[in-house]
């Protein structure tokens, strides 16, 4: 057997794992070869020194360290809970989702129910035009949102008289009509609405009123649209004098 082969068998030879025939050949070679014999002795010495290493013991109890670690881990809330790894957060994370989902459902339910309430509200109409109004409320003092006469808002004055009006009024006898008029910022009548009276009989009167011209009311020098009520009657009602 050659030295190279013997050296490759030294580990198995030492452990007694070689077949009997190979073991005998290796033994014979080692007995006759100084180099291989020395190598085996070095080999044995190295492993002997390794086996002779003292067993090391930790100066503090590993069990106590683990005990402390697990106790802190299981103690629950506090900084440990905040800085725990993701896998240990999972058991608490899922149950905490339940109240979160419930709160979310309550909020969403409230929002939807309020939405439905809003749907049931009647549509907004602008009384003067009779049209449905879906947009924003017009600015105050304009034709869409006129002012009412008050201490600061005077009634618009008639710019020119209508010769036909007295004639029509004379033919009305005891009949009267109650109307709402809106005079715009340019002095034109933007809307006339019959509130009380026969609409057929009132038609020519209303047509006349629509074509009347007024001196527009002013608030702080600025013309404004004004809405006011007007009683159209052939009967002269005089105010009682004192």
């Amino acid at each position, binding site marked *: 057997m050659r030295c190279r082969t013997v050296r490759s068998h*030294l*580990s198995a030879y030492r452990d007694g794992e070689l077949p009997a025939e190979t073991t005998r050949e290796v033994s014979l070679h080692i007995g006759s070869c100084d180099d291989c014999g020395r190598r085996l002795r070095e080999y044995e010495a190295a492993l002997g020194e390794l086996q002779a290493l003292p067993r090391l013991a930790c100066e503090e109890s590993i*069990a106590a360290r683990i005990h402390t670690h697990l106790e802190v881990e299981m103690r629950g809330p506090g900084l440990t809970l905040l800085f725990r790894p993701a896998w240990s957060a999972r058991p608490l994370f899922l149950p905490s989702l339940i109240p979160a989902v419930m709160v979310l459902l309550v909020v969403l339910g409230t929002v939807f129910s309020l939405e439905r309430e809003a749907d049931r509200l009647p549509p907004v109409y602008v009384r003067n035009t009779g049209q449905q109004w879906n947009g924003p409320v017009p600015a105050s003092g304009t034709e869409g949102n006129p002012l009412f006469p008050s201490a600061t808002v005077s009634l618009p004055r008639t710019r020119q008289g209508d010769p036909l009006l007295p004639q029509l009024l004379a033919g009305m006898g005891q009949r009267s009509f109650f109307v709402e008029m809106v005079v715009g910022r340019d002095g034109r009548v933007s809307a006339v609405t019959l509130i009380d009276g026969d609409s057929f009989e009132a038609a020519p009167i209303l047509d006349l009123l629509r074509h009347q011209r007024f001196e527009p009311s002013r608030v702080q020098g600025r013309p404004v649209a004004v809405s006011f009520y007007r009683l159209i009657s052939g009967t002269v009602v005089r105010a009682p004098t004192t």
Partner: protein
Amino acid sequence: MASVDVALPASESVPAPAAERGLVEECRRGDPNAFSRLVAIHEGLVYNLAARLLGDREEAKDVSQDVFLQIYRMLPRFEGRSSLKTWIYRIVVNQCRNRQRWWRRRQRDKALPLEEMTANESARLATPSRECPEEQVARREESGRVQKALLKLSLDHRAVLLLREVEELSGAEIAEALGVAEGTVKSRLARAREALRLALLASEGNAS
């Protein structure tokens, strides 16, 4: 395992296979005393193997703690196909391998050699010595030289040598602990022994 609020028993000897199975079952059922016993039984061999593999006592402490925490968490999944001891050795070697990778990533592959143990630290040796102080010093120097040579080997070679020569595991047990074939263990062991012989020869040459 709801709590570990138990008294910790002193270090115990490794139990027989039947007792070991019983201990594992008790741990699985959540008996905190059983886990404390398991730690007390195995902490010596875990620390010694980690310290010899890494050559650093502080790292060995941390690794030992991590090993038992991993055991605590993985014990319910331990199927008992290998012995508990082999399974623990496997965890130790893997933890040390991970730790060494971590060192390499941070350019910190310089372990604090164990031969630098002070006289006080030598008192922590698991086997109390009756040698005189001179003999103890000589023995410490010799141990340091062997540990230094050991650290020159790769972690795979260190692991196979320590499991075989120090922990006295069989080839099959080492194969289980390292997760390799038995034939691989034999060839790795042969190369590791040769590497140790050369490392020790080199250290002798440097010393002389």
